[in-house]
């Protein structure tokens, strides 16, 4: 640990720290553009100059003015930041950077949060002395998410380092030479990376700005608060920004344990759900909009009548993985209050079991995104990180970039932003392969598969920090169990093998912890079908759309006497229920998510609910009438509404205290800071009962197995309600192995009929090489006919040529 002296103050920093960071530790912030904690130093902007008075004791003697980001702190260095020579250089560098800079601040969306603006002001530069002409560039249309304004570039290379190096994008980079350096796409067109939004955060100037937020607001007018992304189970830190009752943008927050500095485009551009004109904002009895007291009174009365007639088990409660830990806990509290034991905290039976198995077994095997970034071998089994938890793909990429390696065992053609060995095995082989890996017995596999598996097993054994990552959707509960057992089997005294499971929703883990006594959604549905459950209260859950057997779910739901729902999205359940209570969207409410590794991540409320002024004013100025009430401000946090149903009014702090007092696993919850690193839960959940045996495959002659998979921008509930993402919704195509294509006489791009017991679908086929034969991969899309196909069930299908 070297100790260096900066401006007469001594500081000791970890080995390898650069002098710029060391100064920051002392509170001395020197202007800089190109250095970024996650991207490292390249010495491109020439701004971080410091004067080195004494070189180090060891190594080369460094004297004079140097770029502090490029110098590693060594024992004995004496550095001055105040020295006239380096201060003068910094002043000049800023002036030079501004020589070609356009006169754009008033029309530049970066204004107000522009590092260049800040540094220019800090450097005291005001009047352009240089009289020559300014260099200009032609911009590119980079698609629906990113605006491009190349004239403002200062050549710090942060965008390329983010897009190419960190995120693995290949279509964007630096072009040109000499005075004509250009940062853009190699060919005109939309940015391809699902992490493209990060260049908006990384660029210190207004070259890349958020196009969905173009000319909407200034940062000083935004209401912002540290929050947690609600779009998948990873729990990345985000900072949503709202203005005039409208959620206008989301930028990445910083959490060293989860996302680091970046987020995916789903997390960034999935915000439109909060502003929808058709978002339900008033309590409703049937079609009639009523006040909160009336709705709460009516709901409670109805429930009490049903309980009086049919007993307390006739009312059931359905939570969800997108509702916060506190809301789900209040739902349980409510079930207890009515004396009902019928509750489930996830509608999809297999997802429910997978999450509960994970919560029960993961324990000390859990690995955070940060630990994945630092691992040296990652094995993905049945996991498609880009679609099931995008930032996990980047975490593995960082591991690979740092010298680690990765392998993938998956039936699907999985795209990854890093190099990995892919072994395509059919879905029913995944449990076997996990067992085989744990026991090191590969006889049952083909010769080629054996070689790959032996290689993988050897690499796991060699690795110092190996991690197995599984996908809850494809592995299911038994697969999750096998994955965690395999990780245990690979752990030795000197080093442990970690495991991670990508789950369905932001709070899957938290719901699973709470669901210990739940009979599970299957039992609930069966009892509804039998007519034993008469009333169902859904908390931010949509059983119409999310049950893997939609027909059965519909039938069961139609038998209910009372269907009540709390939600902030215009889901089918919200539309069709008898009593509706509007809740706040994630950015409007405070709460806690427990992410895939069991980390409790509290988030704060960013803004209060209300119909955006954009809507009340019809695009023009706000109405010229002044009222005491904000229109559309009725939504309440779900936990508050549920507590009110019991006649209780609890603050969030109170709920958290109660939760940690009654359940030691949530110890420390009440003290956690919003925007902090969070904290792993202290204890495990309980194993669920066993699911049904997987059907043998193929059950019918000539049948293929249908594998429904999550897909980015299309599957996730909240993002599917965000119009901002509409331009990038995935194409409805199914993928098929080339061999199967040849066998069935189906060509690439051909339109065929997909026949399943759920119904028929006209589909376009893509033939792929890198996938298991015997399966059809169908994306989970929430649009039209495709909606009935939900991940998690194993069913057969037949592909028939049109007219055949």
């Amino acid at each position, binding site marked *: 640990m070297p100790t260096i002296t900066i401006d007469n103050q001594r500081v000791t920093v970890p080995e390898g720290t650069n002098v710029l960071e060391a100064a920051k530790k002392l509170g001395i912030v020197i202007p800089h553009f190109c250095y970024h904690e996650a991207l490292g130093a390249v010495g491109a902007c020439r701004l971080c100059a410091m004067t080195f008075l004494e070189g180090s004791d060891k190594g080369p003697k460094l004297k004079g003015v140097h770029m502090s980001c490029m110098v590693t702190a060594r024992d004995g260095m004496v550095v001055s930041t105040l020295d006239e020579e380096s201060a003068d250089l910094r002043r000049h560098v800023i002036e030079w950077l501004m020589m070609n800079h*356009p*006169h*754009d*601040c*008033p*029309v530049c969306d970066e*204004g107000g949060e522009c590092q260049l603006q800040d540094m220019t002001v800090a450097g005291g530069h005001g009047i352009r002395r240089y009289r020559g*002409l*300014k*260099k*200009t*560039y*032609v911009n590119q249309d980079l698609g629906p998410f990113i605006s491009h*304004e190349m*004239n*403002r570039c200062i050549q710090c290379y942060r965008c390329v380092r983010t897009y190419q190096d960190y995120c693995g994008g290949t279509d964007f980079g630096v*072009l*040109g*030479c*000499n*005075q*004509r350096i*250009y940062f853009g796409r190699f060919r005109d067109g939309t940015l391809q990376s699902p992490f493209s939004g990060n260049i908006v955060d990384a660029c210190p100037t207004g070259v890349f700005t958020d196009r969905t937020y*173009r*000319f*909407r*607001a*200034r940062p*000083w*007018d935004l209401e912002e608060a540290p929050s947690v992304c609600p779009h998948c189970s990873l729990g990345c830190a985000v900072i949503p920004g709202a203005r*005039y009752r409208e959620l206008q943008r989301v930028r990445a927050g910083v959490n060293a344990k989860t996302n680091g500095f970046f987020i995916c485009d789903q997390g960034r551009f999935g915000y439109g759900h909060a502003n929808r004109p058709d978002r339900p904002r008033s309590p409703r009895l049937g079609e009639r909009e009523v006040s909160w007291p009336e709705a709460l009174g009516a709901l409670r009365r109805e429930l009490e009548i049903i309980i009086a007639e049919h007993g307390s088990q006739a009312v059931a409660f359905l939570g969800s993985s997108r509702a916060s830990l506190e809301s789900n806990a209040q739902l349980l509290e409510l079930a207890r209050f009515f004396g009902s034991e019928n509750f489930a905290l996830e509608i999809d039976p297999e997802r429910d079991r997978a999450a509960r198995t994970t919560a029960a077994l993961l324990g000390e095997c859990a690995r955070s995104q940060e630990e994945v970034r630092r691992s040296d071998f990652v094995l993905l089994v049945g996991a498609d990180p880009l679609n099931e938890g995008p930032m996990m793909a980047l975490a593995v990429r960082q591991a690979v970039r740092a010298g680690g390696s990765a392998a993938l065992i998956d039936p699907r053609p999985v795209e990854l932003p890093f190099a990995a060995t892919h072994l395509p095995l059919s879905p029913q082989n995944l449990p076997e392969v996990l067992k085989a890996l744990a026991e090191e017995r590969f006889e049952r596999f083909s010769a080629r598969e054996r070689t790959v598996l032996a290689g993988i097993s050897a690499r796991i054994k060699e690795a110092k920090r190996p991690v197995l990552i599984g996908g809850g959707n494809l592995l299911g509960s038994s697969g999750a169990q096998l994955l965690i057992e395999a990780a245990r089997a690979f752990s030795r005294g000197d080093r442990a093998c970690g495991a991670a499971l990508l789950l369905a929703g932001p709070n899957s883990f938290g719901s699973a912890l709470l669901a210990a006594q739940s009979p599970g959604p299957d039992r609930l549905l069966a009892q509804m079908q039998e007519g034993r459950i008469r009333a169902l209260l859904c908390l931010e859950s949509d059983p119409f759309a999310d049950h893997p057997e939609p027909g059965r779910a519909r039938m069961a739901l139609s038998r209910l006497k009372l269907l009540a729902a709390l939600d902030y999205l215009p889901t089918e359940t919200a539309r069709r229920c008898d009593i509706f209570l509007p809740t706040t969207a994630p950015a409007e409410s405070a709460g806690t998510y427990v992410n895939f590794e069991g980390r409790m991540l509290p988030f704060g409320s960013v803004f209060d609910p209300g119909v955006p*002024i*954009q809507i009340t*004013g019809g*695009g*023009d*100025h*706000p109405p*010229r009438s*002044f009222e005491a009430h904000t229109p559309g401000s009725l939504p309440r946090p779900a936990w508050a509404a549920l507590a009110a149903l019991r006649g209780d009014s609890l603050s969030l702090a109170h709920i958290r205290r109660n939760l940690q007092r009654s359940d030691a696993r949530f110890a420390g919850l009440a003290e956690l800071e919003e925007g902090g690193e969070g904290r792993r839960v202290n204890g495990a959940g309980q194993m669920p009962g066993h699911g049904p045996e997987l059907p043998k495959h193929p059950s019918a002659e000539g049948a293929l197995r249908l594998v429904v998979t999550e897909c980015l921008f299309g599957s996730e509930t909240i993002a599917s309600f965000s119009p901002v993402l509409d331009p990038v919704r995935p194409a409805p195509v199914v993928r098929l192995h080339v061999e199967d294509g040849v066998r069935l006489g189906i060509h690439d791009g051909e339109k065929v009929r997909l026949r399943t017991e759920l119904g028929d679908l006209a589909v376009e086929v893509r033939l792929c090489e890198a996938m298991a034969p015997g399966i059809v991969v169908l994306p989970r899309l929430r649009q039209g006919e495709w909606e009935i196909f939900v991940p998690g069930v194993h069913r057969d299908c037949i592909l028939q040529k049109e007219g055949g």
Partner: protein
Amino acid sequence: MNVWRDIKGTVQPFWVTLRNMFRRPVTIQYPEEKRVPPPRYRARIILTRDPDGGERCVACYLCSAACPVDCISMQSAEAPDGRRYAAWFRINFSRCIYCGLCAEACPTWAIQMSPDYEFSKYATLDMVYEKEDLLVDHGGKDNEYNYYRHAGIGVVNPRGGNEDEAPPVDVRTNLP
């Protein structure tokens, strides 16, 4: 010692009063008679136009940020030609203190103080001015400046066509 000061202090005001008794009164018979304020007088705010007749305001939010009483609100938007403009722009004059900080902050000469001081209404809501009410069809104190002729985003002039700009570079060339 202080006696002299006190005597002076007692007598001097009488002298001032006496002297002014023979001056012409400054009171004028408003509203029949009106005083013409100097051009830089700070009264009712206007939104001016550039010499080409376009709205000058680019909805940069600087005036609303500078306003100490928060009486300016607006929403910026993008026109099809890329121009940033105010979709709506509202000043609540019943709150405005005519400090002129907005005009000082404005980078485009759009918002200016006019000398129109005769400004009162019966209803508060009538003091809330929208963009239509604020817009005038001249350039106020400067009839020359057009911000978009200087900005790099190329709305009025083609890209690289401003006076101080070189034509766009050819990124693909290798020549020095």
